[in-house]
């Protein structure tokens, strides 16, 4: 187990290096000169532009820029944004917000997805199974910005049931509806995934054997059906947590949430290479670690899986 973990962690190094180089190259290849853009449609003072280019190493060739970035990143110095803010500070402000939103959305989709999935899977054909199926189909087919805008307008603006947007305090009540919107599509997928797994596992031979041995219905469900059914669900959830951490650009824009998605979008628009690459590096680590945790969880759920 320890060896396996070490190997996985060592594998992260080339992945992170390769990805940062790729992203840096992509930002570098973006058309347009970010320094000229800073002047808007006003005359560019070339002497000033040269000063700014020198300050952000934008006057150097691509590979030198990248190596300078790497060298600084090792000492956790990600440089400054064009606005003169330390990049690390920008990230430190945005990530807690996104983590909060992501975890809330994650809990929402995991809990409701699995619970409704189980109910639906166990009681196939009942009226509430049909209701759950129809609602989940609806959630999958409607894009989140529709759910978001419609919910904001009717529940928030018209009927004043929920806070319309999220303030800078990002309180639980304010974040609740955006988190539900964000998690709704994944929740629907999880419902359907759990339902189909449960209903197919329930008909398996080993379930019949367990019942024949006289096991109680509850322990058959817990130890055999549920555990086997949850493996694909856990895989899905693990991937999704990584994706949620990447920020939800659309949800963040609708509800005024200053998270990672919005920060990434802004920094791409401004051509802020350092900021984009720093965010992506952190996201990459989050994603790789999420995947690792998911792989570890397999062992817990399926005794046949061993890591040596």
């Amino acid at each position: 187990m320890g060896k396996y973990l070490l190997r996985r962690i060592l594998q992260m190094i080339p992945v992170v290096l390769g990805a940062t180089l790729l992203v840096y190259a992509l930002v570098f290849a973006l058309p347009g000169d970010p320094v000229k853009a800073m002047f808007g449609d006003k005359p560019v003072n070339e002497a000033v532009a040269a000063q700014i280019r020198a300050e952000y190493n934008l006057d150097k060739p691509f590979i030198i820029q990248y190596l300078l970035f790497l060298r600084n990143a090792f000492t956790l110095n990600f440089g400054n944004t064009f606005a003169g803010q330390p990049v690390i500070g920008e990230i430190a402000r945005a990530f807690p917000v996104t983590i909060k939103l992501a975890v809330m959305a994650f809990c929402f989709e995991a809990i409701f997805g699995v619970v409704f999935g189980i109910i639906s899977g166990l009681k196939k054909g009942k009226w509430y199974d049909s209701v759950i199926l129809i609602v989940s189909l609806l959630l999958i087919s409607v894009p989140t910005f529709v759910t978001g805008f419609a919910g904001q307008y009717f529940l928030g603006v018209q009927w004043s049931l929920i806070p319309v947007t999220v303030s800078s305090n990002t309180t639980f009540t304010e974040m609740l509806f955006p988190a539900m919107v964000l998690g709704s599509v994944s929740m629907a997928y999880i419902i359907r995934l759990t339902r189909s797994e449960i209903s197919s596992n329930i008909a398996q031979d080993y379930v019949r054997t367990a019942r024949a041995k006289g096991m109680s219905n509850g322990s058959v469900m817990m130890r055999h059906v549920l555990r086997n059914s949850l493996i694909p669900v856990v895989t899905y959830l693990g991937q999704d947590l990584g994706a949620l951490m990447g920020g939800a650009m659309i949800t963040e824009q609708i509800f005024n949430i200053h998270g990672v998605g919005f920060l990434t979008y802004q920094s791409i628009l401004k051509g802020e290479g350092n900021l984009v690459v720093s965010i992506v590096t952190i996201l990459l680590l989050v994603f790789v670690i999420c995947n690792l945790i998911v792989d570890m969880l397999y062992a817990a759920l399926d005794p046949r899986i061993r890591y040596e």
Partner: protein
Amino acid sequence: MKKKAFVIAAAVCAVATLMGGCGSSSSTNSASTDGGKMIITSYASEPQNPLIPGNTNETGGGKPGDLLFARLVSFDAKGNASNEVAESITPNDDATQYTIKLKDGWKFTDGTPVTAESFTKAWSYVANAKNAQKCSSFFSTIAGFDDLQKDGLKGTEQLSGLKVVDDKTFTVDMSQPDATFPIKVGYLAFAPLPESFYKDPKAFGQAPVGNGPYKFSKWDHNKEIDLVKNPDYKGNDVAKNDGITFKIYTSDTSAYADIQSGALDVMESVPASATKTFQKNPKVQAYNKAGSVSQTFTIPSSLEHFQTNTEEGQLRRQAISMAINRKQIVDKVLNGIGTPAKEFTSPLTPGYSDSIKGEENLEYNPTKAKELWAKAEAISKYDGQLTFAYNADGGAKPIYDAIVNQLKNNLGIDAATNPMPTFQEFRDAVTNRQIKGAFRTGWQPDYPSAENYLFQLYASAAADGKGSNDGDFKNADFDKLMDEAYAAKTTDEANKIYQQSQEILLQQLPAFPLYYSNAVGVAATSVKGFEMNWQNLPVYEELTK
């Protein structure tokens, strides 16, 4: 093994639940009232630069900056200038030297007095290329500017054209006559700076100290900027409220939702999705009047068949201009939040006139357009395709689709749009003169003067990359009138000359004025005194609730 794994799984779930629970510490948020004080909340975006006046060239920083710093002159809502910190600004005979006297009693919020040096040192700092201030080119007409653009500067060198006479008086030598200088000094980049700025400009940029109607209180990055009323301010725009909180939004749609629910007081734009409905929406106060932003497109002055200095080119340009139905574009495409253009400045610019000779070239007249085009064809045949470049990220697509269709229908010529993905890419192509056709241009004035539209956009001195004359229009008669206007004794006299200079522009059409973007905005229903100024911004000092 099995047990251990379950423990891990349980721990992961527990952590997840805990983190989710972190948010539950609910605190009621009402930024609008702060201990009985009347604080107005306004829509804003995160400033793209530190809050240093000379480095602020976009609205995110410009909005708080304008309220934090009082300049020599201030502008009323209509754009008329009056002295603020200045007691008098006196030009010599040919407008090459100004003597500026300051009023007594002005103080920065740190208690230090505003002196002649507060201005001269600040202006030199911005002009000095070493300090990399984005507004440095505003100082280019002051003597000594060129010396501060060289390599090897320390950053402390002063503009040689600025001379302090005494504590309250200084003189400004211009490198060329500049009659608009007394108006220009109302622009934010000309703000005075306290002595404390030079000790640590970086810290100052995060917590500026000014002399304006408001005092800086707090900048919570990406969240809000708080300003409170400056009790010591005795200028022209004393605030009627106790402070302004600029709330930073991720999108104008979320801000609009907040205005409707009363969680936000005022915003100076309307999301595209609401342009049709906002004036009828009972949950908001709507504002929609002609503004100062002029929207145009430019055909490079040297483009073959379209040269501004040949008869053929002028005929074609006039034909194109008359083939465009500006009113229809404003009504149908913009849902009425624009005003068809009548000349090259704007209705909010002092000296505006809708009846300058040649104005008929901006009126829709398809028959005449066809005639003129046929005349041009008789001189020399043109069978190329006229393309219209614009940036696709700014919502300009329907406008240019309409223009292209109108030209095809009314002139029978081959026209097409040439969209470019981002503003950055588009501006790059424009500044590198890579566009061989028409391209979108627009102008938001820095100070309310015809000079700011005309000289900056059409004078030879601003062509070839030295300014914003992106079409490289060069006309000796026009330049001569610009010089005369610069040397004019009074603003009225200068404005007459500017109108005269527009006759040349309306004849040769280096650019095609389309419409003026309206100043549109919304305020919560509880807000009183909601008006917008010549910069298309709310008059913040007048807002109450």
